[in-house]
C-alpha cells in the first residue's frame, strides 16, 4: 500500500513537482501544519515577509523577472485579506501567482470562527480561479491544476484555500496529470489565412506603427527575439506600453518610446496618424488610447493577443489574431522572409516619407526638461541612474506616480523581464517588495526600486525582509515631499488646491535606513549626484537612497483632458500656449 501523506506534505510534494524554489509568506494559526512541514523540504526556501501584501508583490517581482510563477503562503482571515491588493495587481497586469491560504477547519467554516473570512468569495473577482479544498483527496489535483491555470493562456493569479483539518488529513499523493484539459480554452488557434492577410496589410502600409505590450514579455524571451526580427524585417516604427518596455531595445532608432498619457510626442502622433496599427500583446488600456472616438481614426487595426476577450473590448479592430505572441510573430516572420526571397522589393521605401514625418515629431524632443545646477531635477536623477547602471544588466522596479513615469521615460530597457511596475492597478507600495522578489530570483544582479517617498512608505516594512536575507536592493527615492502625481493633477485641474497631497511629517530616511540596519545615502546637490549613485551601486547590501528633488516638477509630455493623441501638452517651454481649459479637465 502506498504511503499516506498529510495535506501539508502533499502541498510540498506538489510544489516540488512544480519545481518551486521559493515561497513568500507569513505564518499564522490556520497554516501552521504547512509551516511545520517546511523543514523537511530543503529545496524550497521560504522568504518571510513583514506583511502579506509584501509577500504578494515580492512574488510578482519574482514571477515577472524570472518567467516562473510566484508562490505565496498566507494564513486565513487577515492573512488572506492583506494579500488581496497584490492578487488584484497581478490580475490586472497578468502575472502568474499561486497563493495558498490557510482556512479554519471545515466544520467551523461559516460560523464566524476566529480569523475566518470567506477567502474564495473575497478573491473570486481578483483571481483567474480559486479553490476551497474540502476533501483531502482533491488536494494534489487542485494544486497542480492551479499551477496550470496560473501559467497558461493569459497568465494570472490563482488562490487555493486549504482548511486546517485538510492540512492534517492523510491520503495518497497523486502526480500531476500531464494530459491537457482545454475545456474550449485553446489559445493558439490562429490560421494561415490570418497571417497572410496581415502580411498583405504590411506590404500595403504607408504609415504603419507597431504597438507592443506586456503580452510580449509574458510570452517569454523568444517573443522579444521574434519581435526584434519582425521590426527589422519590416522597418516599421515601434512604440510600447508601460508594461511592454524592454521587449524592444529602448535605445534603438526604430523605437519611438512609450506611448499613452505620458508617452512621447512622436509615439502618440504616429499612433494618431498611422494607416496601419499592429497591436502585439497589449489591451488598448484607457491610459493608452486617450479619447476613444478619436483614437487612431484612419488606420486599419490589427490585434494579436492570447486572450480572446481583449479583442474588440475597447477598440474595434479589422484583423484579430488570437494566439501566443511567440508563435504568431515567428509565423509572420517566416512568411515575410519567404515572400522577400520571391521578389526583392521591400516596402521599406514605401514608408520613407513616414519616417521623415516621425523624425520631425522627434525634433520636438518631448522628454526634455529644464535642468538646474541648484536642485536635482527628478528626470535628471533617473537619467544619471540609467547612465551609471546601463552596463550592468540592471533590474528596475517602481512604485506608482510621477517617479514611475519618469523612470519609464528616461530609463531605457534593452531586455525583457528587467522592468517591473504596477500598471493596471497602479499600486503604490509595489516597488519595494517587488524588488525583494526580483533579488531573490536574481541574487547576483543589481536591483533598483525607483520610488517616490509617499509610495515607498506604504510597504517600507519590507526593508526588514531585505536586511534579513541580505538582499542588496537599492531603494532610489525621488523625494519631492508630495504625492507628486496627485499634486500635478491638482495643479492642472483643481486650481492648485493641494488638498492633502503634501507630506508634512516625512521620516528621516537616513535614520530609517540605520534603524533597519541598511545603508542610507542622501543627495540634494546635483554636483554630488553621480558620486552618490556610484556609492549606492558599489555598496554590497541594501541601500535607501534619499534623493531630494525639485518638488515642483511636473511630468510631461501629457495627453490632457479628453484629447486625442495628437493634442499633447509638452514640457514647460510649450505650456504657455497650451493651457488646459474647460471640458478638457475631465480626462486627465
Amino acid at each position: 500500500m502506498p504511503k499516506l501523506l498529510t495535506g501539508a506534505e502533499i502541498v510540498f510534494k506538489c510544489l516540488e513537482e512544480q519545481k518551486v524554489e521559493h515561497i513568500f509568506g507569513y505564518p499564522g494559526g490556520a497554516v501552521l501544519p504547512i509551516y511545520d512541514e517546511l523543514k523537511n523540504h530543503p529545496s524550497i526556501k521560504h522568504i518571510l515577509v513583514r506583511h502579506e501584501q509584501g509577500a504578494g508583490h515580492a512574488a510578482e517581482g519574482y514571477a515577472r523577472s524570472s518567467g516562473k510563477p510566484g508562490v505565496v503562503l498566507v494564513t486565513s482571515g487577515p492573512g488572506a485579506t492583506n494579500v488581496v491588493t497584490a492578487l488584484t495587481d497581478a490580475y490586472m497586469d497578468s502575472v502568474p501567482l499561486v497563493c495558498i491560504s490557510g482556512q479554519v477547519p471545515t466544520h467551523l467554516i461559516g460560523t464566524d470562527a476566529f480569523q475566518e473570512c470567506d477567502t474564495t468569495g473575497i478573491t473570486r473577482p481578483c483571481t483567474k480561479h480559486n479553490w476551497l479544498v474540502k476533501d483531502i483527496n482533491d488536494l494534489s489535483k487542485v494544486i497542480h491544476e492551479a499551477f496550470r491555470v496560473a501559467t497558461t493562456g493569459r497568465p494570472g493569479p490563482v488562490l487555493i484555500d486549504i482548511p486546517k483539518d485538510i492540512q492534517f488529513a492523510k491520503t495518497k499523493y497523486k502526480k500531476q496529470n500531464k494530459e491537457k484539459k482545454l475545456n474550449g480554452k485553446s489559445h493558439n488557434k490562429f490560421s494561415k489565412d490570418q497571417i497572410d492577410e496581415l502580411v498583405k496589410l504590411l506590404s500595403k502600409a504607408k504609415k504603419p506603427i507597431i504597438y507592443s505590450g506586456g503580452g510580449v514579455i509574458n510570452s517569454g524571451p523568444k517573443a522579444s527575439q521574434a519581435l526584434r526580427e519582425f521590426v527589422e524585417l519590416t522597418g516599421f516604427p515601434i512604440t510600447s506600453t508601460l508594461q511592454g518596455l524592454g521587449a524592444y531595445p529602448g535605445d534603438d532608432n526604430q523605437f519611438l518610446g512609450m506611448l499613452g498619457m505620458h508617452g512621447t510626442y512622436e509615439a502618440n502622433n504616429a499612433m494618431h496618424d498611422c494607416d496601419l496599427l499592429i497591436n502585439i500583446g497589449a489591451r488598448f488600456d484607457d491610459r493608452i488610447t486617450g479619447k476613444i472616438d478619436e483614437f487612431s481614426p484612419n488606420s486599419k487595426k490589427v490585434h494579436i493577443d492570447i486572450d480572446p476577450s481583449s479583442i474588440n473590448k475597447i477598440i474595434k479592430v479589422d484583423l484579430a489574431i488570437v494566439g501566443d505572441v511567440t508563435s504568431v510573430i515567428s509565423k509572420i516572420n517566416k512568411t515575410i522572409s519567404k515572400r522577400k526571397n520571391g521578389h526583392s522589393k521591400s516596402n521599406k521605401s514605401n514608408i520613407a516619407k513616414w519616417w521623415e514625418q516621425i523624425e520631425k515629431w522627434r525634433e520636438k524632443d518631448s522628454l526634455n526638461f529644464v535642468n538646474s545646477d541648484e536642485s536635482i531635477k527628478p528626470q535628471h536623477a533617473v537619467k544619471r541612474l540609467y547612465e551609471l547602471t546601463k552596463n550592468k544588466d540592471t533590474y528596475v522596479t517602481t512604485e506608482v506616480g510621477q517617479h514611475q513615469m519618469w523612470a519609464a521615460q528616461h530609463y531605457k530597457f534593452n531586455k525583457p523581464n528587467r522592468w517591473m511596475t504596477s500598471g493596471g492597478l497602479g499600486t503604490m507600495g509595489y516597488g519595494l517588495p517587488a524588488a525583494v522578489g526580483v533579488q531573490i530570483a536574481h541574487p547576483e544582479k543589481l536591483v533598483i526600486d525607483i520610488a517616490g517617498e509617499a509610495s515607498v512608505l506604504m510597504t517600507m516594512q519590507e526593508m526588514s525582509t531585505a536586511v534579513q536575507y541580505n538582499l542588496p536592493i537599492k531603494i532610489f527615492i525621488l523625494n519631492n515631499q508630495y504625492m507628486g502625481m496627485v499634486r500635478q493633477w491638482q495643479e492642472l485641474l483643481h486650481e492648485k488646491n493641494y488638498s492633502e497631497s503634501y507630506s508634512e511629517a516625512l521620516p528621516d530616511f537616513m535614520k530609517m535606513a540605520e534603524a533597519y540596519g541598511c545603508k542610507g545615502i542622501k543627495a540634494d546637490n546635483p554636483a554630488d549626484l553621480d558620486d552618490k549613485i556610484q556609492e549606492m551601486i558599489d555598496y554590497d547590501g541594501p541601500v535607501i537612497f534619499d534623493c531630494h528633488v525639485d518638488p515642483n516638477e511636473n511630468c510631461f509630455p501629457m495627453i490632457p483632458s479628453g484629447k486625442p493623441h495628437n493634442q499633447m501638452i509638452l514640457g514647460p517651454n510649450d505650456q504657455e500656449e497650451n493651457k488646459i481649459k474647460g471640458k478638457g479637465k475631465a480626462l486627465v
Partner: protein
Amino acid sequence: MPKSKSAYSIPTKKQKPDTYIFVVWVDNEAGVLARVVGLFSGRGYNIESLAVAEVDAVKNISRITIVTTGTPQVIDQIRLQLTKLVPVHKVAEFKREDKGVIFKEMALFKVVGKRNKIQKCLNACKKFNPVILDETKTSAVIQITALRREIDKMNKRLKPLGLISTSRTGAVAMTRGAKIFN
C-alpha cells in the same frame, strides 16, 4: 451640469441595447453560479432572468440560461468573458427574436375566488398550456408555460380575476430541429 474633474474619459457614443439569451454549460461545483453571476455584476452587465439546474448527473454538468440586455459589443464581451471562466465548458447566445430557438418560462398563478372566476382564468390562459396543479372550493394553482412578455401580460390580466400570488422561473432555451448548440 457641473464640470467633471474625473481622471477618466467621459462615456461617448451609445449603441442601442438588445435582449439576448445566453446558455452556459458549467461544471456543477460549489461556487460556479457565484462566478457566473459575479462576472455579470462585477462588469456591470444586466441579468433579466436566470435559470440553472444540473442536466447531466454523470458528467456533472449544469446548464445556466441567462437573459440579458446589451449592445453587440457588450454581448461579445459577455460571451468571451464567460468562456474564460475555468468551470465553463461552452457558451451559446441568441437574440430574443431568433426564430430557430424556443424560449420558455414557466409560471404558477394562485387564484382565489369563486368557480366561475377560476374558470375565467383558465380560459384566459388557454393558449399557454394551463395545468391545474391544486384545486379547492375557493382557490386554484394554475401552471402555464409561455414567453416572458406573455406571462407579464397574463399576470396583469388575472389580477382582477383573483390572482393573489405569482411565482415564475427564468427562461430556458432549446434550438428547433435536430441541431444542437455547439
